[in-house]
C-alpha cells in the first residue's frame, strides 16, 4: 500500500484561489443552510473554508461536472448552468465567521462537510443532518445535536460548527 501524502493547513491566503463565484449556490429553489464557524474560545473564524458534497433529491451520488464552468473566451467562472446537479459547494466564511449555502434537500438526509481553516493542519469531516437519522443515535450521548440542523423557518436551516470546546461538533473519521 502506498503511504499517503500528509495534509498541510490551507493557510490564510487561499481566498484568491479556491473560492469561486456561485460556490455557495449548489442549486436555487430549494433550501438555505447557514451558520457560523467558531474556535475554542467561542470566537468566529473568519478564514475557514467549507466544502459540501451531497446526494441529489432522489438520493443519487453521481454528481455532475460544471461547478466551476468557465467562459472559454475570458476564462472567468460563469458557474453552474442549473440543469445538472453537481452536488458540490465551496464557501469561505466571511469576516464574521458566517457562511451560507443554497441547495436542494438530499435524498439521503444529510450534507457532507469538509472543514478547512488557517490553524487547522488537517481538514475535518462532519455532516449536516436535516432530519433525524438512526446514525445520530449511535453518537456519544449528548453530542448528536451538533449534527442536526435547526429549522429556523420553513426552508431555512441553521448549522454552527464548533471546532473545540463546549458543544464541540462531532467530526467523522473515514480513513481507517
Amino acid at each position, binding site marked *: *500500500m*502506498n*503511504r*499517503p*501524502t*500528509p*495534509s*498541510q*493547513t*490551507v*493557510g490564510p*491566503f*487561499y*481566498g*484568491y*484561489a*479556491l473560492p469561486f463565484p456561485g460556490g455557495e449556490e449548489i442549486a436555487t429553489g430549494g433550501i438555505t443552510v447557514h451558520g457560523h464557524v467558531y*474556535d*475554542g474560545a467561542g*470566537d468566529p473564524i473568519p478564514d475557514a473554508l467549507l466544502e459540501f*458534497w451531497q*446526494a441529489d433529491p432522489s438520493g443519487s*451520488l*453521481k*454528481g*455532475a*461536472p*460544471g*461547478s*466551476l*464552468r*468557465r467562459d*472559454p473566451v475570458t*476564462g472567468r467562472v460563469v458557474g453552474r448552468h442549473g440543469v445538472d446537479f*453537481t*452536488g458540490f459547494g465551496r464557501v469561505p466564511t466571511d469576516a464574521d465567521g458566517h457562511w451560507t449555502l443554497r441547495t436542494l434537500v*438530499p435524498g*439521503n438526509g444529510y450534507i*457532507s462537510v469538509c472543514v*478547512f481553516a*488557517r*490553524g*487547522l*493542519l*488537517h*481538514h*475535518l*469531516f462532519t455532516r449536516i443532518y436535516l432530519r433525524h437519522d438512526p*446514525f445520530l443515535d449511535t453518537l*456519544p450521548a449528548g453530542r448528536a445535536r451538533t449534527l442536526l440542523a435547526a429549522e429556523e423557518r420553513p426552508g431555512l436551516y441553521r448549522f454552527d460548527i464548533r*471546532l*473545540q*470546546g463546549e458543544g464541540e*461538533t*462531532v467530526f*467523522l*473519521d*473515514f*480513513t*481507517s
Partner: protein
Amino acid sequence: MTLTQADIDREIAELHAVAPKSGHPLRDFAPYRSSVLRHPKQPLVPVKDPEAAELTGPVFGVTDVTPLDADLTRRHVGEPLGERITVEGRILDRDGRPVRGQLVEIWQANASGRYPHQRDDHPAPLDPNFTGVGRCLTDEEGRYKFTTIKPGPYPWRNHRNAWRPAHIHFSVFGTAFTQRLVTQMYFPGDPLFPYDPVLQSVTDPAARDRLVAAYDHDLSVPEWSLGYRWDIVLDGPAATWMEEGR
C-alpha cells in the same frame, strides 16, 4: 514575552520526542500557534457505513478548467519575474491506482514571497504579471503538470523571525470525498525546514519527506525552465462499487 525561534525549536523537539510518528500532521501542534484553539479535543467518530456519501465525491470536467489555467506564467500581459519551473507528477490512491480526470488546484506566493492578498502586507513587491493560481485535470495516468515560477520564502507572525519555507499549496480531489487533500509542496534542500512548525507538525520524518518535490533534470527544458517532480498519494477509502459511466 516575545516567542523566539529557540522557544519554538524547543517545543518542536519536545513534541517530536513524545508524539507518535504520524503520517498526517497532529491537529494539536502548539508550535503552530493558530492550531491551539482550532482543533477538536473529542476523538473523531469512525464511520463504517459502506453507503456513506463520502465514499463518492464531486466530479469535474472540461467545462471546469481552461488549458491556460495550467500555465501560471501566461496569465497577464507580461512575463512574471522569477525562476521559471515546471512541476509535474501523478495522483494515486492508497492502492496505487491513478486518479483520472480529477481537479488539481494550486496557489502560491510570487518570486518575492508575496501573495496578492490584502492580509499579506509584508514589504516585498507584488508582481503585476503574476497572480499565482493554477488548475488542471489529471490525465488518464493520473498526471498533472503546471508551469509557474519558484515561489519565495516569506515571513509570518507565528513567533519572532518566523519564515515559511518556499511552498506551493495543492488542493486535490480523489474519486471519493474521503480522499480530499489540501497540502503544501516544498522544494528540496530548503534550509528553513527545521524551523517551520507547519512542516514539523508531521512528526514522522519519512512522511515529511513526502512533502518535498524532487529536482528532475530530465524535466528541465534547455534555455527555459527547471523541472520538479512530485507524486501525491491520497488517503482514505473510496466506494468499491462502480456506477455506470463513472
